[in-house]
């Protein structure tokens, strides 16, 4: 499951980065493995996604978002 599979209002936990190395800027803005991420708004026709990750409000394009794996909020809590 990746960020793009989430719907607005849904919350998940960012998984460890494995095959894909996201741009360093994303990490600097707080998008780190283990952080919670909430989808706020999606721009129409596959436009960018507006998320709240770790308290940071950021917009990312789908191409990047679709490569960042997430774990459902519930199952992550049990770990």
């Amino acid at each position, binding site marked *: 499951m990746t960020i793009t599979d989430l719907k607005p209002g849904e919350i998940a936990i960012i998984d460890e*980065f494995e095959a894909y*190395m996201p*741009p*360093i*800027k*994303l*990490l*600097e*803005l*707080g998008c*780190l*493995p283990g952080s919670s991420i909430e989808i*706020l*708004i999606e*721009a*129409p*026709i*596959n*436009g*960018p996604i*507006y998320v709240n990750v*770790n*308290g*940071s*409000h*950021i*917009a*990312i*394009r789908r191409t*990047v978002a679709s490569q960042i794996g997430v774990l459902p909020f519930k199952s992550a809590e049990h770990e």
Partner: protein
Amino acid sequence: MSKSINVALIGNPNTGKTSIFNELTGLNQKVGNYPGITVEKKEGICKLSRGLRAHIIDLPGTYSLNTTSLDESVVVELLMNKNDKDFPEVVVLISDVENLKRNLLLYTQIKDLKIPVILAINMADRMLRKGIKIDVPQLEKDLDTRIALISARKKTGIDELKELMANYQTLSNQPVVDASRIAPDYFDRLKLAFPNEDLYKLWLVITQDTNFGEIDKKPLEEKSDFGTLSNAELKRLQHKETIVRYQFINNVLKQSYEVDLHAAKGLRATVDKILMHKVFGYLIFFLILLLIFQAIYDWSSYPMDFIDEQFAALGQWVKTTLPSGVFTDLIAEGILAGIAGIVIFIPQIAFLFFFIAILEESGYMSRVVFLMDRLMRPFGLSGKSIVPLISGAACAIPAIMATRNITNWKERLITILVTPFVTCSARLPVYLIIIALVIPAGTFLGFSYQALTLLLLYFVGFAAALLSAKILHHTLKLSNRQFFVMEMPSYKVPRIKDVLFAAVEKTKSFVYGAGKIILAIAIVLWFLGSNGYRQEFKNAEELVTERINTEGFSTQSQQYIDSQLAEVTTAERYTQLLQIQENAKQQEIASFKLEHSYIGVMGKFIEPMVQPLGYDWKIGIAVLTSFAAREVFVSTLSTIYSVGSEEEDTIKHRMAMEVNVGNNKPLFNFASGISLLLFYAFAMQCMSTLAIVKKETNSWKWPMMQLVGMTLFAYLVALLAYQILQ
């Protein structure tokens, strides 16, 4: 002479850094460029206690010392170069209270460079509303520095910050995070290879693609026995570094930073839902654009007309007051006209940047970028290009200056290069007069052909801009290391002071930066138009007088005389006649002189080239002088046709009478009219735009490429249109 220290203001974007800079320095600030690059350099002076003065440098906003743009490189390069005259004795890290966690990442990095850092937590007035509590003494202890809680808006804490700056020598310069933890073996080897260098600095030199003064990359490349790492490995380590820093920050904040989410009140979510709505979001943006357009298109026309009149009056005054001669003409028609050509843009630039500053300061601009990103993506641009491109419809000059918000250099360059295709207001007078001449008056589905043609021209301009952006995106070989990741700042009411400062600063940078070039070209064009080497030019007065005496006035002049006489009463007719005839004679002389001036000779010289487009040498001259500014087209034709007034109907009437010598058809027919419209739509005919492009790209290469590329394209399209339609 009091002692002066260098203070660098560093911080994430949207932390109110510029507001604090404005509060500290007031009007004691200047904005320039870093040598050789187009990054803005803002510096100012602030008086501290005990006669100490702080030379404050407002560095570009950055999230970390990992550089992805020129702006960010400037920060790293300064902090790494102890020999730089601006090297800071102390850094003030501006943080915003809500995003303290993220802001501290940069703090820990600068601290690792062993430079004293004061932490200034801005927007402290929001703490209560956001349910935030900070244990300042504890945080100072954990971060090993001093903290100032400030609010630029409420003007609190500024004095405390100044006091901390004055006592910079008491601050610790020890690192708080040991970055070598991320790869102990690797860092040990580095230490062995370079025992005298600072490890974190070495790490930055290895990972950052910037020019460093003090430590060159070269010895690092030559001496690789510390074990060079692949780019992927380096990137993984950078990730690890970021994670390690965040772990440290999380631990620190656990002790001293508390947010009570239940107490937090914010409009962000609600406002976002409206402003970023699928339908309303676009509608609101459209309305805001309409307002901005109204301002730069319509409201600014009043000050612009005023400037125009004042300069015309001043030129007239100079001509009548100073003894007539070349020098007076140079002042009145060359220099004053050139300065007028600079000043005339001030209202538009000031208006546009006034609005852009409001959009930015309020946090709305990021929402626009979010909304428009999808639309721009197919053309290799991001949402950040939308505002410059649309402002180009008023005037390309402020629009090109507005590209400074685009952090990605490739996207910014492409936007600069394609913006002049967008139909600007200077093309409008040309379009209107030619459309009125050659487009028939019928209607299509209730819309007049003429209005539809105008709409089509706007559309064609925008399409040309987007398509050339796509082509440039694929052909320009520039590294494109940036990804579209953007912060959505919280909403704020813009501070009037910051907005005004921004508008004034942009205006100044235009006047002083591009002004010189515009003035120079204006003088050259004046010289070419008012001087000639031919006998005809030198003896214009005698030749024209003689012709009038023997052959009478030209048909056009006779019409002018008749129409003028019709306006005066019979009693005055005799006394007025001489004056009117004299005017007509002067117009004929001016027309004759222009025909034989350097520019007239050039017009005739290029006639064979413009003939296939359906133009004659007179239009050729108008096209040439249009390089000063497109709107000059109409006034040049009026001089050539010696019409004597810029009254549109008179000129239109005169133009309709022109006959093409080649085929005896009207010169301005459907084919040549369309050809001319297309030429003006695509050609790069604006010296002010070229001057501002030179300033913004810091090179003549790009404006020259625009001049040649756009004009050539315009020529080919106009040629094709005429040959098909005629």
